[in-house]
């Protein structure tokens, strides 16, 4: 996060706290993309992700007076958003990963797999979203935050060591779950490189 962005956030927060709700528009415009994308990683559904992001913005607005500036505004905001997303997922969970689709892919030839790589990646992402909540949250936030462990721990509100352990166990669980998918063919890996 750049310094200018952080300063703009703080200026907008002060404006809202001084009684001008229009100051919140800058926050919405700057962070709508990240909040929607984080929600999308949990639900894999654009419309629902936007609804969840809107709820998150509303909660951030309502709780703005609780922001004490101990961390960056964006860290606090993602933490509030994560709690909103967790509540939403408790009310309506993501449909289970279609394991039949995974099984169908096993045994296909390399060219077929290359063609189906997008589907395969989607299955992996859905498998993350269907993990037990604490592993799901850790993995989702970690990759969303470009593998920044310290920031992930702050957003999850856990010590770094706990975040690291959650990531490790989450990856192992995911690998077990996705064992049937095997390794990605080298041709596909090269295409992504």
């Amino acid at each position, binding site marked *: 996060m750049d310094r200018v962005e952080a300063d703009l956030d703080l200026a907008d927060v002060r404006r809202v706290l001084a009684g001008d*709700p*229009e100051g*919140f*528009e800058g926050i*919405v*415009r700057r962070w*709508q*993309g990240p909040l*929607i*994308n984080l929600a*999308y*990683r949990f639900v894999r559904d*654009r419309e629902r*992700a*936007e609804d969840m*992001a*809107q709820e998150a*913005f*509303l909660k951030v*607005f*309502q709780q703005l007076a609780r922001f004490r500036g101990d961390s960056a505004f964006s860290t606090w905001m993602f933490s509030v958003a994560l709690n909103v997303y967790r509540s939403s997922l408790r009310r309506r969970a993501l449909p289970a990963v279609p394991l039949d689709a995974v099984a169908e892919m096993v045994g296909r030839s390399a060219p077929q797999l290359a063609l189906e790589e997008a589907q395969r*990646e989607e299955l*992996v*992402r859905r498998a*993350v979203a269907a993990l037990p909540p604490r592993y799901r949250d850790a*993995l989702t936030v970690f*990759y969303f935050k*470009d*593998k920044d462990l310290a920031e992930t721990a702050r957003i999850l509100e856990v010590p770094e060591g706990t975040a690291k352990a959650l990531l490790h166990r989450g*990856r192992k669980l*995911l*690998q077990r779950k*996705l*064992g049937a*998918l*095997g*390794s*990605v063919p080298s041709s596909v*890996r090269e295409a*992504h490189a």
Partner: protein
Amino acid sequence: MTTDDLDRILASEEPLVPSSGFAASTMGRVREAATAPPPLPFPWRRFLLGLLATLALSGLGGWTTVRLHAVEALGAAFGSVSAALADAHLGLPLAGAVVALAGTYLLVRLTLGFTGASR
């Protein structure tokens, strides 16, 4: 599937672009929230007052019951139970129940009295 495969797949998600009306509709809801009256906090002061009143009434009822029982027991021991005490004995459980009910009613009334109707 290796850890590298997972890393590559999970780190390479294509970002979504928000719908064109997202910011406007979100700000619409924010404005609504800004003009809505703040939620009423729980009326702790009234609740505690009611609780204290209930405890005081229950204590008084209990103490009266014990005292009259003691008088009756002493009276029986000395062979001089009066008709008045006998009446009181029959009425005591009912009196205790009335005191407890009154206290509970007071507590509920004080707590609920804080909500919208009283404003």
